[in-house]
């Protein structure tokens, strides 16, 4: 298996004549619009939540950069508020962030064929969020493997920066923000991603997304802890095979 992977990576010729900083700036610029604004908004909500839990601002910032996935971050704070057992807190955070496994499985192969991009893969998966993942996936047809690393680094940097700024602002403004604002900042994150995915043009993914949206709450009612992986596998398999079936008839 590993040998096969090696053959594939050496088959792709790498282009050495790329302007790394130009691509980094392009990623930074393209991230510095809606994606970064949404990270800012939702992390303001998160900062306010950490403040309400009575933890300090450094915990707030380090948890944003380190966990870097809002559902897991929220689980972390809420379980501490509840004073839940350590084991259940870790299980909740881990399950809430389980999406990173299929995401990193589909992100990392994009850097195959670029020695420099491939070398940084363990860092790329740490700075990966739904935002940066989609941000790179959308650019795959336009960027060669060598260009993806610097572009992704720029895109991720701006998201991490606005995430840190948002967390700090939210923590500092926690007592002045009225309920209708805080709750909207929490609401904006899932809504934004719903539209990001609805704008995708890959049919298999769209069907999987629709199937997941319908079955997600139902699986949650059946088994709250395991609903996410089950929903992902059922809806993903449905989308994958529905797309093939449609292709056969087209």
């Amino acid at each position, binding site marked *: *298996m590993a040998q096969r*992977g090696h053959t*594939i990576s050496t088959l792709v010729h790498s282009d050495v004549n790329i302007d790394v900083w130009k691509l980094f700036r392009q990623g930074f610029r393209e991230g510095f619009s*809606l994606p970064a604004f949404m990270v800012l908004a939702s992390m303001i909500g998160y900062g306010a*939540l950490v403040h309400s839990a009575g933890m300090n601002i450094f*915990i707030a910032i380090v948890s944003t950069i*380190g966990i870097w996935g809002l*559902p897991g971050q929220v689980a972390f704070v*809420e379980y*501490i508020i509840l*004073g*839940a*057992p*350590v084991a259940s*807190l*870790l299980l909740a*955070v*881990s399950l809430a*962030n389980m*999406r*990173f*496994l*299929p*995401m990193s*499985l589909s*992100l990392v192969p994009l850097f*195959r064929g670029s020695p420099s991009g491939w070398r940084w*893969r363990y860092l*790329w*998966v740490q700075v990966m969020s*739904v935002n940066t993942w989609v941000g790179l996936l959308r650019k795959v047809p336009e960027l060669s493997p060598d260009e993806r690393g610097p572009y992704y680094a720029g895109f991720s940097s701006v998201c991490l920066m606005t995430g840190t700024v948002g967390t700090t602002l939210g923590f500092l403004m926690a007592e002045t923000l009225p*309920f*209708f604002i805080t*709750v*909207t900042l*929490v*609401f904006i994150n*899932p*809504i*934004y991603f*719903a539209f990001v*995915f609805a704008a995708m043009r890959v049919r*298999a993914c769209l069907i*999987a*997304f629709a*199937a997941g*949206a*319908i079955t*997600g709450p139902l699986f*949650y009612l059946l088994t709250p802890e395991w*609903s*996410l992986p089950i*929903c*992902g*596998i*059922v*809806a*993903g*398999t*449905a989308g994958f095979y529905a797309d093939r079936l449609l292709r056969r008839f087209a």
Partner: protein
Amino acid sequence: MTDAMSTSAQAAPWVLLIMAISATYLWRGMGAVIAARIDPESEFLQWIACVAYGLLAGLISRIIFLPVGLLDNTELVDRLGATVFGFVLFVIFKRNIAVGTLSAAGLFMLLVWLRTQGILSA
């Protein structure tokens, strides 16, 4: 050291945070390790991408229909109404993400504000 039986209230928050970051990185790192061993053109990876989309859709949908935490203090009809409103504008404006998101969030904020003012009954 914190053992599994103690509660998170007794443990130092920094210890919990480092454990939470590691628990998250486990999935990320595992993906990177496995990805090195599979063919990037394989059907398995296409299926995995579908699983990621299905999982994220399930998570988003669950947050809107059955939220926990802060959003649990809002009405289902507000969350759903705002989502549908945003989706209609999203389609009208040729799948514009910004228009969809901001109109949904705007209507949601207005509805929640109207309820806190007692103009809309909860």
